[in-house]
Structures are given as C-alpha cells and as structure tokens.
C-alpha cells in the first residue's frame, strides 16, 4: 500500500443535499478501508433534506489520519454551485472533477493552476442506469483518476445496493464501469495515486456513533430509548437495525423526558440501558438525571454535541456542553462525564460507560460531538472478547441479603449493594426524596448528612480510578496543547506539524475522563505553558480545570462556527502566539 506523491490525499465530494453524496462518500471510505488504507471521511451538511450545497470529504493515507487538512487535493463537484463554493479549498495544482454537464467558471481555477476534468458522467449514468446514479459514476471516475482499483468500488456497490435488489446492483456497476473507462484517459493529469497491496490488512470503516453503538452492545446494553435529534439519531437508528436475535430493544419515545425516564426504568430493573440526544434534548433530561443521581440508577446518557445555543447550528459540530454536563441538575450528586476523542474511543466508551455506571451506581454522561459522531474512520477491527464487564456491587439473584435489605447502606466507599426488582429476598424501595438506608423517605438531619456524604463519597472513589490526562508528543515542550473530544485529532496532527523540524515545540495533553478528574491532573498541568484548543467560545475545559485545580492556562484557541479545526490553523495560531484569554 502506498500513496504516490504525498503521505495522503484528500478528496471532497460535493453537491446538493439529496444527491447521495454521503452514501457515495461512505462507499469510497469502505472501499479504501478494504483496500487496507487509512481513511477518514467527514460529512458537512445543512439543516435541510434536499438542495443546498453539502459535501463529504475523504482523506486517505498511508498511516492513521486524525483530521481533515486545510486544503484538498481533489474536488469532485456534482453541481456548478459546488465548484464555486469549494474552489478556494482546492490546493494550488489540485484537481476538480465534475460532470461535463456542469458549467464551470474556469476563471476560478486557472489562476491557481487547477486541473479541470469533465467526463460526461450524467450522460453515462442515464445511458447505463439512470440519472440518479451520477454519484456512482463520479465515484468510479474518481477511482480512475487516483488509480484506485475499480473492482473495490464494484464490491462496495454490490454490498451497499444489495438490499435494493439485483437490478440496482447491476445498473450501478454498469454505470461505474462506463464512467471509469471514460475517465481513464485523464488519469495522467492527476499526480496523486493510491496503490493498493495485494493482501491488505482488513480494517473497519465505521462512524463514531456506530462505533459507540457497537461498543454499547459489546458492553451488554440491550435497551435504548431515544427521541431523534441530530447528531445522536444514528445511534438509535443503528441499534434499531440490529436483528431481533440480539435482543436489542429500542424505543423511539414521545420526547426526551420519556426517553431518559424509560432508560432509567430499564436500568433500575437491571438492564444496561441508555439514551442519546443532543444538547437541546439533554436539557430536557436534566430533572431525570437528578433522579438517577439520587436513587443511584446506572443510566448512560449520550450528549452528541452540535452548535448551540438553542437550535443553533443543528448539523454542525461544537464542544459547548461541557460545563453544563458537569453541573446539570439542581442540588449535588455524583455523575461521571467522559468524552471520546477518536472513533476508537467511541467504541471503548460504548462499553466502558456501562461499567462505570454500574460500578459507581450513578448516571454517566458521554459527551461526543457531531464531528466524531458522523465521521467515518478506519479502525483496527474491534475485539469483543477483550471487552470486560463490571457490574459493580450488584448482588446475584441467588444471594440472600435477607430481611431489611439496605439498598442504600452507608458504605465506606459510598457504593451500596444493589438488587434488582424481582428478587424475593430483596424487596426494596427507592425514593427521589431523601431516604434512609432501606430507601424509605426520611427528613432527619442526621440521616440526611450521612446519606449525602455516602453518595458524594462515590465521586472520590470514582476519581481515584479515573484516567488522567494523556500526553502525546515529547514529555517536555515549549507549548502544551490541551484538548478533549474530537479536537484531539487536529491537535495531535498540529503537534506533529509543529515538531516536524525535530525541535520539541509542542506536545498535547488530552482528557477522556472529564468528571470527576483524576487526582494527578493538577500535577500534570503544573509548570507547563498550556494552550487550550476547544470547539467552543469560552474554553470550557480550561475553566473546569481552573475551578478544580486552580491551574490557569496561558490562553486558548477556540472555534465556534460549527466547522472542525484543521491542524494547520492550530499550528499557525500557536506560531503567531495570539490567544484568547480564558
């Protein structure tokens, strides 16, 4: 496997919503993954169903790719509008591939020496299938240009269109053949080539939300209730697509309040249960979050962040919910907040969230974001056998706690024995009111103080086992970037860019366990020149760290326009040294 003329190639597929770009893009990612390449595919779309310019960007590399670069090599544009909109992003000497039927304003391309290639893709699609298959034609044309084997594209077409029937497969394959053939003559005009090894190592091509869903199933989650909300919807949609044999129960609820309440009801009875939403839906879940905190129900809640506040930028990315997630709910109760940084993390958090929830008997909030949720990445095949299950202090159905079972025993580490309704030996009550050890309502001051302390001790117990910030790059460096969530990817690549000349200019501290913080956090932060890089306005992680450790960052680099960071812009801002105050 090799990429000719560069460590990687980035291709942007662009057109109107409804032209099938995202599925073409995903098809290309899968084909490249099967061919043993490292790929990252990132969608960009508006809050509308048809029309309006969308794009899907694919970066293909020899080694793992963590983000989308500032400039693209090839633009595959299905409409004139797509060319106009994205021409600026094409690098000097890059390529624009567009159907001959699209009228292109050459003046946008010529000054920057961009090659325009225009096979008659619409016509070919009509001729061999139908006009709707123009995206298939474009994909095959693209393969021809970058030397990617047509067979790999054909295989993916076979897989993806199989549920639409044999005719759909055949027609799309015919269109692909024709487009590939018609475009081969231009292949010489494109400098970058992807060459594929004979025996590629298989990789999974998976979106963050799918990885999370798969991880959740691996972790024993068999109940999910949710109300649709971008970018969380694909979790419940994917789990709903799992065949009944898996026993995966999903419920599309009437609203987010019902969604979290159903999950709490399910978790209460002993299932591993979750819900997923975005910030607006999470707002509605806050009261029930407190119920789970008070009655110690291990429910998992995914907040897939998008641009806020309110409806905001509903199809774009942001990291704006951190301080809210940590403080959501009136009164004080333990909760755990974790955030995946990569697609691999998404899978791991999928099962880990349930272990944490059951071990500490509290709600766990998983903060993912649009960029992670929707981007498709190649990852090493996940290993289900290695997934550990930890159900904490759940008593077995054949244990005999006997009379007067103390569900809320004043345990030293705060973790009381947990039974499930149905156990003849452990009939018990729980109440959202303050309660005694047996779960009955109790207003006495002494009991209150002890029960509050018992609950809050769980936070210390959980902190002791939390993962500390992780260092990437040289142990010591002039500048330490600080990141969480999907911003990890571009930061990591920015560190590599900054250190490219061998000098330890930068390293990166990244956190997955955001609340409670590992006790070593303060030590890890001290005596560094830290620049927080966050996809929000107010550098929320930096604020959280100052609140909890007293350590201040030097400044921050923020982005809140709903678009992802590129490694190049982080590098440049670090070099310029102009940071926002926190």
């Amino acid at each position, binding site marked *: 496997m090799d990429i000719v003329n560069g460590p990687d190639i980035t291709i942007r597929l662009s057109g109107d919503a409804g032209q099938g770009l995202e599925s073409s893009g995903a098809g290309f990612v899968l084909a490249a993954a099967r061919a043993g390449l490292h790929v990252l595919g990132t969608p960009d779309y508006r809050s509308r169903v048809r029309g309006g310019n969308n794009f899907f960007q694919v970066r293909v590399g020899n080694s793992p790719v963590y983000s989308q670069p500032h400039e693209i090599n090839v633009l595959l544009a299905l409409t004139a509008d797509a060319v106009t909109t994205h021409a600026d992003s094409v690098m000097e000497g890059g390529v624009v591939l567009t159907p001959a039927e699209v009228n292109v304003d050459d003046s946008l391309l010529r000054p920057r020496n961009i090659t325009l290639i225009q096979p008659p893709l619409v016509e070919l699609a009509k001729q061999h299938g139908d006009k709707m298959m123009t995206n298939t034609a474009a994909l095959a044309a693209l393969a021809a240009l970058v030397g990617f084997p047509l067979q790999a594209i054909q295989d993916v077409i076979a897989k993806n269109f199989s549920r639409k029937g044999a005719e759909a497969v055949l027609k799309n394959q015919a269109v692909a053949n024709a487009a590939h053939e018609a475009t081969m003559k231009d292949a010489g005009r494109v400098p970058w080539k992807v060459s594929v090894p004979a025996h590629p190592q298989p990789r999974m091509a998976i979106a963050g939300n799918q990885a999370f869903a798969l991880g959740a199933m691996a972790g024993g989650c068999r109940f999910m209730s949710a109300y649709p909300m971008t970018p969380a919807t694909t979790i419940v949609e994917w789990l709903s697509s799992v065949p009944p044999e*898996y*026993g995966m129960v999903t419920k599309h609820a009437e609203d987010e309040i019902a969604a979290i309440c159903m999950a709490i*009801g399910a978790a209460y009875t002993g299932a591993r249960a979750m819900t997923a939403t975005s910030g607006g839906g999470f707002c509605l879940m806050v009261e029930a979050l407190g119920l789970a905190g008070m009655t110690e129900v291990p429910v998992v809640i995914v907040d897939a962040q998008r641009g806020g506040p309110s409806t905001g930028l509903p199809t774009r990315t942001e990291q704006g919910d951190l301080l809210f997630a940590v403080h959501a709910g009136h009164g004080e109760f333990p909760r755990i907040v974790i955030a995946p940084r990569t697609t691999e993390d998404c899978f791991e958090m999928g099962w880990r969230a349930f272990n944490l929830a059951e071990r500490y008997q509290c709600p766990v909030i998983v903060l993912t974001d649009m960029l992670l949720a929707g981007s498709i990445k190649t990852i090493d095949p996940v290993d289900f056998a290695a997934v550990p299950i930890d159900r904490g202090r759940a008593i077995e159905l054949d244990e005999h706690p006997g009379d007067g079972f103390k569900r809320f025993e004043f345990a030293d580490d705060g973790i009381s024995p947990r039974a499930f*309704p149905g156990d*003849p030996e452990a009939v018990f009550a729980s109440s959202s009111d303050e309660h005694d050890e047996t779960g009955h309502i109790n207003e006495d001051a002494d009991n209150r103080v002890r029960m509050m302390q018992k609950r809050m001790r769980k936070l210390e117990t959980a902190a002791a086992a939390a993962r500390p910030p992780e260092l990437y790059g040289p142990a010591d460096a002039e500048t330490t970037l600080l990141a969480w969530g999907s911003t990890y990817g571009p930061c990591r690549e920015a560190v590599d860019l900054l250190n490219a000349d061998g000098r330890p200019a930068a390293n990166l501290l990244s956190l997955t366990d955001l609340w409670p913080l590992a006790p070593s956090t303060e030590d890890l932060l001290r005596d560094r020149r830290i620049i927080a890089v966050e996809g929000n306005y107010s550098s929320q992680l930096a604020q959280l760290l100052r609140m909890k450790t007293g350590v201040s960052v030097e400044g921050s680099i923020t982005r809140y326009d709903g678009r992802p960071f590129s490694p190049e812009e982080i590098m440049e801002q670090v070099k310029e040294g102009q940071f926002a105050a926190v």
Partner: protein
Amino acid sequence: MQPSDLSLNVFESDAENTWCPGCGDFAILRGLKLALVEAGIHPHEALLVSGIGCGSKLPDYMHVNGFMTIHGRPLAIATGAKLANPNLHVLVVNGDGDSYGIGGNHFVHTCRRNPDITHIVENNQVYGLTKGQYSPTSEKGFITTTSPDGAIEAAFNPIAVALAAHATFVARSFSGDPKHMARMIVAGMNHRGYALIDVLQPCVIYNKLNTYDWYKQRIYRLEDEGHDPSDHTAAAARAQEWGDRIPIGVFFQTEAEHAYEQDVRALAAGTPVESATRLHRDPRPEQYEALRQRFL
C-alpha cells in the same frame, strides 16, 4: 384463588404514614393490597412506580418493590421497566396533577402504546401536597389559590381522552369503595395491556367540593345499568356524564390489541435484564461477529 401465603399483612410496611386523617388515599392503599392478594402477586413480583404528590407517597407505605420517582414521569419509567423485564407486574400510582397535568404527554402516548401496565390515578381534583392549587381535573369555577376567581378552563376528562387516545382498558373507581377498587385493579392487572383506573379520591383538606358525600350522592355503577364495556361509542357517551350522575366501573375494554411488549420482536431473544445478567456470567462475544462484519 388466594395463594395461602398471601394476605394483607404481607404488604404491611412500618414506615410512618403522613397522609391527613380521612384522606381518600388510605382506601386506595387498602384497595391495592386487596387486589394484589386477590391476584396472588407477591411483593417481589410487582414493581410499583409513583411520581410526586400526596398520593405518590403510597409505595412508601407498603412492602413491595417501590420506586418513588419525579413528578409526572412514572408512566415513562414504568414503561422502561416493563420492557426491560416483562416478567414484573408493573403498576403506576400517582395523582391527577402528576398523571394528567405535568404527565399528560406520557399519559396520551401510553394509552396508544399499550404496554402491560396497571395505572391507578388518585384523582382528588386538586394539588394536595403543594397545598391546594387547582388541577387539570378541577371543575370550572373551582376556587383555589391559583384560581381565586374560579378555574376558567374546561376540566380535563381522563376517561374521554383515554378512549380517544386508544386506551384498551378504561375504568373509574371511588375511594369510598375499596372493594370495588380492588375489583377494578384486579381486572386491570388481568388485562393484557395498559389499564387506566381513575379513582375519585376525596382530599379532605383542599377539596371541599368533591367530598365523600358529594360523590356518594352521584355515583352509580356502570354494570348496574347494563353498560357493555366492549362498546366504544357507549363508553365515550358515558365518559361525558358528570355532575348529577357519575359512573364508576369499566367503561371500555378490548383484548383485540397486543400489549406493546408482545410486538417487540427483540424480546423473544431474552429480556434486556436477562441479557445483562447472562453477560455478567458468560460473555458470548462470538455473537457480535455478524455485527462487526457490517463494517468490514
């Protein structure tokens, strides 16, 4: 019918009861215990979910698996519990404000969803625990602190709305008659699907209009007038009766519809609770291979 080991005192709890003397909730507590004995359900076999309010304290006052949750949400929580473990007998008990006020959305959707849950509403037509504001079921003109000139909204009619929202079992009972109530609850538990039992429950402190006497003068039994509970149109007509004559009994019942969980195909593979328990002892990673293949 009664299993020999079951009697009312199996359900006895020593928690202090905080209801006002004379409160209609006492009879509901008794009616529910009678029903569980009658139906042969042990404390560990049932899960009793409530919200917040005077009536929602009920689970604290009996020995049974009880989950006293938040205001307005018990139906949703109960639905999750039922789907995760259909073997439990899941019941909900909550006030009119809890059920039809803040909980109104879950109420209408639970009706059409039809999970096998028995729902007992302690309908005192007022907000008791918060000291006497008008509730959705308060009659027009009812004077409270938040309706000093009398309520100016048409009262919410739970029977009529449940019928319109596709409920498959709709009944009403009265705190003055615990045996009738027990009968309704048993019928509701035997019903395969969602069963609403709206109980007229005098609040002796904040509702001086709808008192025991007021009800006794007006209540009649549907069965005494030959009402046919399979007749939806007749049920809807009876649901409109209020004022001079107030019907109690089963307005409507149909077994023509499946309970929600019967149609959840994934449940055939084992319940979510069983899956979690199995997994705890015996992880079976091989079953995931097909899922993994989707991405390869």
